[in-house]
């Protein structure tokens, strides 16, 4: 039985049959009329009867329709052809000589050959299986009758090696004599591509899980069966240690009952939040503030809980800090208002006493009252400076370009106005511009230049310098004076609030100015330090975030 492996549908055959059935009588009629008309003209005497001719030709047409196109015969062969033509597996029929006799459409699609090119080709030039070539394979098939599901390679016309899963069986004739081999092959390229995509996608998700900022774990049958490194890190365990733990013992004892109740209710289908804040216990017993999210998933065919954990310790600290800041603000406000009011009364009424009753008091009493006045004034300054210090910590820094040279000049001018008689030379570097908060940087320069002005006040002549220099590749700004200076042994105390290196009988002050400077510089991401020598002056250096 000869199969035509090319795709020809039933319809195609029906068309051919119909054409034969109506064409043959027409041809017979035409030929019949021609013999009737033309033969006598040509003086040919033998004239077959027309009816005879018609019947003859029609009969021939019917024979053709039956034999070639299977008219009115059963159609298993047509069905088989259809199946073969539409199947996606490759099918190759090989003769006993090892040459291809037939192939189906799928084979042509896979290999890129035409049917003509393939027929009569050595099968060994197309099919190889591992170390075995096509011919050896054929022999094997003929010996064993069939071989199944082996991977092999088909060599396509363009040189591509196509991986296939193939089986082969011997074809025998009626006398059970082998006449060839039929080979079916499943194109593995799609499958391999799918597997590759699957692996890539799996790798992608694995990377996502491994590098996630949140801890991820799967909990099943009362223990962790999977965790990412972040999860282990958060709790202070290694991945191996995590495997045997249960979630319950990792929850803070105070919250265990609540969590367990929730878990039970959730599993019972009740509406419970699946994300909540909870305290977890680390390996070392310390507490981890966490936001935990649960999802019931199917893992290896059993229900499991997918747990994601976000560390909220920082958030907690921040909220607490904000709270403290708010309290500080309220405190500053009340200091500003409430502490100053009684102070004003003390100062005011002492002054009134001095003014209205000064004459009736003796010198000692007047001196005491003056001391009260001076002390209240000093306390007023202290309160103001403290408020300034706290404001420096609280205000938001607004960055802009600030010309420190211009600022220094204006501060110097203001200082000179307070004591026009003093011989102080200001040397201010030109065009020093920085990025920073204008009002805060002004506080820095006011304090540093103000200090220089104050601590040179005992010298008949003074020199105050604002400049810019470089140290270890950093830009450093400085304010230098040749005044009272300080002992380097106390250099570390300079920036402590209320810490003074000079008695108030020498130089007045509250001891908060440099602490304020330091906070401002810190908030600008810089640092501040000082060098000095007693009676040889002091230099204050500061840097700002570049």
């Amino acid at each position, binding site marked *: 039985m000869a199969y035509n492996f090319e795709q020809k549908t039933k319809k195609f055959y029906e068309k051919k049959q119909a054409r034969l059935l109506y064409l043959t009588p027409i041809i017979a009629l035409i030929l019949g009329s021609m013999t009737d008309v033309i033969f006598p003209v040509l003086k040919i005497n033998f004239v077959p009867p027309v009816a005879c001719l018609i019947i003859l030709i029609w009969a021939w047409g019917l024979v053709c329709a039956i034999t070639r196109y299977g008219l009115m015969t059963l159609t298993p062969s047509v069905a088989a052809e259809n199946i073969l033509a539409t199947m996606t597996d490759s099918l190759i029929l090989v003769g006993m000589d090892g040459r291809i006799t037939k192939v189906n459409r799928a084979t042509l699609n896979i290999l890129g050959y035409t049917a003509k090119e393939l027929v009569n080709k050595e099968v060994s030039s197309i099919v190889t299986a591992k170390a075995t070539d096509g011919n050896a394979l054929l022999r094997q098939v003929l010996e064993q009758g069939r071989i199944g599901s082996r991977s092999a390679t088909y060599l396509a016309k363009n040189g591509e090696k196509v991986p296939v899963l193939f089986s082969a069986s011997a074809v025998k004739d009626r006398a059970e004599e082998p006449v060839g081999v039929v080979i079916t092959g499943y194109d593995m390229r799609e499958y391999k591509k799918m597997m590759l995509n699957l692996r890539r996608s799996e790798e992608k998700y694995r990377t996502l899980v491994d590098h996630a900022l949140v801890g991820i774990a799967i909990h099943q049958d009362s223990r962790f069966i999977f965790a990412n490194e972040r999860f282990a890190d958060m709790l202070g365990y290694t991945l191996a240690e995590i495997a045997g733990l249960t979630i319950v013992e990792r929850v803070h004892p105070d919250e265990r009952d609540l969590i367990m109740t929730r878990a039970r209710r959730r599993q019972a289908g009740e509406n419970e939040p699946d994300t909540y804040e909870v305290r977890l216990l680390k390996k070392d017993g310390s507490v981890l503030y966490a936001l935990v999210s649960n999802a019931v998933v199917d893992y290896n065919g059993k229900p499991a809980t997918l747990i994601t954990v976000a560390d909220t310790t920082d958030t907690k600290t921040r909220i607490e800090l904000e709270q403290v800041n708010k309290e500080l603000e309220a405190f500053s406000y009340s200091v500003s208002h409430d502490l100053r009011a009684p102070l*004003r009364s003390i100062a005011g009424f002492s002054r009134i006493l001095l003014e209205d009753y000064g004459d009736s008091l003796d010198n000692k009493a007047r001196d005491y009252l003056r001391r009260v006045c001076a002390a209240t004034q000093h306390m007023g300054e202290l309160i103001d400076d403290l408020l300034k210090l706290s404001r420096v910590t609280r205000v938001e820094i607004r960055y802009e370009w600030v010309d420190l040279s211009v600022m220094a000049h204006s501060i110097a001018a203001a200082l000179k106005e307070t004591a026009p008689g003093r011989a102080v030379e200001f040397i201010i570097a030109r065009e020093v511009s920085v990025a920073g908060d204008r009002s805060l940087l002004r506080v820095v320069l006011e304090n540093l230049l103000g200090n220089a002005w104050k601590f040179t006040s005992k010298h008949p002549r003074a020199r105050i310098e604002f400049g810019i220099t470089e140290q270890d590749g950093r830009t450093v700004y400085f304010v230098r004076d040749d005044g009272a200076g300080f002992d380097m042994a106390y250099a570390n105390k300079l920036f402590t609030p209320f810490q003074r290196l000079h008695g108030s009988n020498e130089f007045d002050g509250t001891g908060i100015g440099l602490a304020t400077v330091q906070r401002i510089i810190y908030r600008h991401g810089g640092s501040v330090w000082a060098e000095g020598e007693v009676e040889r002056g002091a230099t204050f250096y500061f840097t700002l975030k570049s």
Partner: protein
Amino acid sequence: MDKKIILLVEDNPDDVELTVRALKKGNILNEIVVVRDGVEALDYLFGTGAYAGRDLSIMPTVVMLDLKLPKIDGLEVLRYMRADERTKFIPVVILTSSREEQDLLNGYRLGANSYIRKPVDFAQFIEAVHQLKLYWLILNELPPRQRTP
């Protein structure tokens, strides 16, 4: 010459004493009306409560207003004053010990004319009050509406 009235809204008796003393320094005679809280201040300004029946054609030339007051605070008093035609143009000087930026901003936003922080130093305080008096009672020209209510 019209008698000029200063309305002092202040709850702290010490501050009242000191401010009145500072206001009395100098030779200009003014009547100083002292009220102790926000409600009383509004009563005086609009002739209600304890001040029912007061001649409302006589309005203070300037109001000195503390911010922290019992019952109704200073900013609220200012808001009422600026919302009422009768008191809309009366100059208001905020006198307070607060230097909170927020208070300062709110004061100006609600239409305060000056904002003075009470200094601890009494000499400075007298000077500040003196300047205020000089400016608001003598130099400042009030809008015509104020004179013919």
